[in-house]
């Protein structure tokens, strides 16, 4: 894991001092709310329906157990005993007091954390594959590149007042677990025929009211050129991105209106000027950062354990969990474990302070002291020995973190909606709850297999409904909340925007409608191996429409 240098520490201390001063100026009335807003947003502080909300950065989703304990402490001391992991791998607190935010930042800085650029019209916290460094399908570890991007983008003097927010995601594996296609810039590490490492560069993806899949502007950019090329993209965007209309300000609109070809020309022309500058990465620059992400000390273990197999045979609950929430690890004898934050008892993504402390302890005991957060609002213990799985599972079960539903129907992404968000047009959490209650039967959910269901409480699409196999968007029609259903979206390497299937459903009808969609799938799939998306792509919308609207 990246260890802060003296300079990194210094920067955080200075930032906290600066923000403390801004808060004081605001409280004294020297700073208007409008001006303060611009500053606080650059530090992750929103004003929400009931209170302030603080978004803390979890750079590329990586946490140490010590950091997790601090997050627990903040939840307990400054919030109401819980935090909320978001689709951008960050954690949000819903009830901090303005006066106390500088203190929270102090506590965070002590463990190399902060809220810098987690909101506002700047380059946001970079996201990545939660399995970075341990995945079996990895081409190269994306974390050193994420860290270089973190450093380059933090307080970038030219790009801190962009037309709109700017999100970057990096993935280094065959399978995309970072949803790169729906980011302003998405990077995928690839190798060319000569075995050299490079990047596929996607630009202009995003959700919100105009959902778009990113366009491939470079199919092989040498890794050394990563930052110069991004600087060129950002420079073109800062100059030409629209500022006249908030809804047209994202880079996706610029790419769309300029045309992919022309946009690429503009970027390449700018890049010519800077590609040989000191921002170009040398091997030693990359190596120095990569040294922070060297493999931990793994033991030499067999990929087989008799007691483990015994437990699988005798404990069906354990077997269910193993079936759904584990992933193979690149090292023999280890497994990756998904901690489901989607239990019937808590809103998607929520974790209590006690759970956080326990997770930190479990990470120390069973997983080399590290935790990752995922864009589907779950957590990961990435380095668990096969021989420890049964014990770990028992602990997780006691904590309510072992729901065997990873990548299954009830692994729902849901935004806070009307319960917290001032922009919401409908509730999302109660819908997620209703769906969880209705589909609690393990065998049914398991039989449905790999499927994604996401819910947003308004067109801004924080719940990623566009890229769900089954998406639900809450809208307000003449004072009543209704829910639009979209089908066929994907956030993976086959990324796609789902299509609205027909007229919206009321809150009472939507759960039944989802049930109908699932029935159509089950009736039409070729066999149990054919997942929902494949079936949908094969049979199209018609059979679903017919069943839903008759």
């Amino acid at each position: 894991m990246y260890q802060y240098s003296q300079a990194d520490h210094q920067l955080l201390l200075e930032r906290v001092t600066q923000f403390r001063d801004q808060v004081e100026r605001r409280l004294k009335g020297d700073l208007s709310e409008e001006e303060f807003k611009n500053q606080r947003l650059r530090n992750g502080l929103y004003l929400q329906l009931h209170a302030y909300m603080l978004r803390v950065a979890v750079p590329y989703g990586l946490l140490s157990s010590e950091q997790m304990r601090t997050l627990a402490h903040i939840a307990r001391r400054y919030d109401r005993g819980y935090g909320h992991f978001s689709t951008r791998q960050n954690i949000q607190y819903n009830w901090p007091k303005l006066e106390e935010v500088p203190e929270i930042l102090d506590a965070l800085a002590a463990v190399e954390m902060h809220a810098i650029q987690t909101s506002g019209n700047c380059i946001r916290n970079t996201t990545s594959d939660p399995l970075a460094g341990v995945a079996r399908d990895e081409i190269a570890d994306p974390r050193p590149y994420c860290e270089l991007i973190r450093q380059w983008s933090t307080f970038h003097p030219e790009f801190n007042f962009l037309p709109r927010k700017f999100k970057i995601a990096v993935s280094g594996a065959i399978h995309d677990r970072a949803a790169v296609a729906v980011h302003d810039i998405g990077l995928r590490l690839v190798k060319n025929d000569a075995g050299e490492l490079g990047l596929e560069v996607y630009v202009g993806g995003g959700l919100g009211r105009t959902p778009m899949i990113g366009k491939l502007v470079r199919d092989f950019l040498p890794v050394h050129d990563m930052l110069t090329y991004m600087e060129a993209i950002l420079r073109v965007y800062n100059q030409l991105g629209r500022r006249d209309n908030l809804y047209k300000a994202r880079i996706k609109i610029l790419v769309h209106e300029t045309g992919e070809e022309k946009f690429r020309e503009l970027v390449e022309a700018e890049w010519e000027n800077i590609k040989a500058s000191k921002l170009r990465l040398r091997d030693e620059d990359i190596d120095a950062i990569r040294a922070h992400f060297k493999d931990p000390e793994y033991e030499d273990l067999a990929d087989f354990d008799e007691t483990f197999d015994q437990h699988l045979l005798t404990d069906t609950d354990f077997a269910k969990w193993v079936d759904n929430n584990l992933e193979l690890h690149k090292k023999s004898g280890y497994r990756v474990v998904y901690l489901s934050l989607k239990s019937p008892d808590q809103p998607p993504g929520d974790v209590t302070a006690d759970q956080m402390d326990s997770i930190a302890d479990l990470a120390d005991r069973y997983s080399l002291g590290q935790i990752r957060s995922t864009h589907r609002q779950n957590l990961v213990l990435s380095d668990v020995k096969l021989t420890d799985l049964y014990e770990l599972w028992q602990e997780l079960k006691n904590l309510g973190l072992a729901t065997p539903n990873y990548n299954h129907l009830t692994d729902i992404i849901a935004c806070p909606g009307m319960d917290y968000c001032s922009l919401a047009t409908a509730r999302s959490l109660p819908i997620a709850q209703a769906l969880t209650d209705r589909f609690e039967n393990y065998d049914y959910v398991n039989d449905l297999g790999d499927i994604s269901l996401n819910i947003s409480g308004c067109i801004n699409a924080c719940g990623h409904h566009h890229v769900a196999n089954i998406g639900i968007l809450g809208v307000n029609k003449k004072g009543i909340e209704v829910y639009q259903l979209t089908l066929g979206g994907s956030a993976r390497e086959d990324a796609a925007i789902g299509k609205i299937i027909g007229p919206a459903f009321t809150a009472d009808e939507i759960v039944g409608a989802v049930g109908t969609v699932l029935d159509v799938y089950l009736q039409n799939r070729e066999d149990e191996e054919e997942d929902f998306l494949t079936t949908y792509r094969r049979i199209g919308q018609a059979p679903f429409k017919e069943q839903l609207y008759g």
Partner: protein
Amino acid sequence: MGKYIKDRKPAEDSWLPYTGLEGEGDLPEGDIYVPFDAWLDRREDLLKRNSRLGVILENTDDIYALEPDLERLDLIVLQFPKMTDGRAFTQARLLRERLGFKGEIRAAGDVLQDQVFYMQRCGFSSFELRDDQDVPSVLKAFDEMSVTYQGAADTDAPIWRR
């Protein structure tokens, strides 16, 4: 007279913003800066004068149009119509780093304490402050952050190459 900071010190602004260029009339004496359009229109006349010259750009103007005359210019004023509109940051960097402009680059408009740090890094050397800004606080704000990660107009290397 507004509040004005140059090279990190409170200063007197000796420049006259001059817009009366529509007619064929005589140009005033002294140091003047003129709008970009007027510059393009009466460039020859302006260059003949003996006093110092400046140009004020909109943040959508193409700085490359000034390239042939940069030697002759002493001041370029760039604007922040709203604090959230950051286009002039790019203009300043390109002027300094790409075109090598050595004269005064001045920030005008919504110039706030919380932004001067970024502005100076992009190559701004002077600041016309909004009236409500507190000059001592602004002066302090130049040094609020001592750590920088990226190269910009102030240093060309990113932190990992320094």
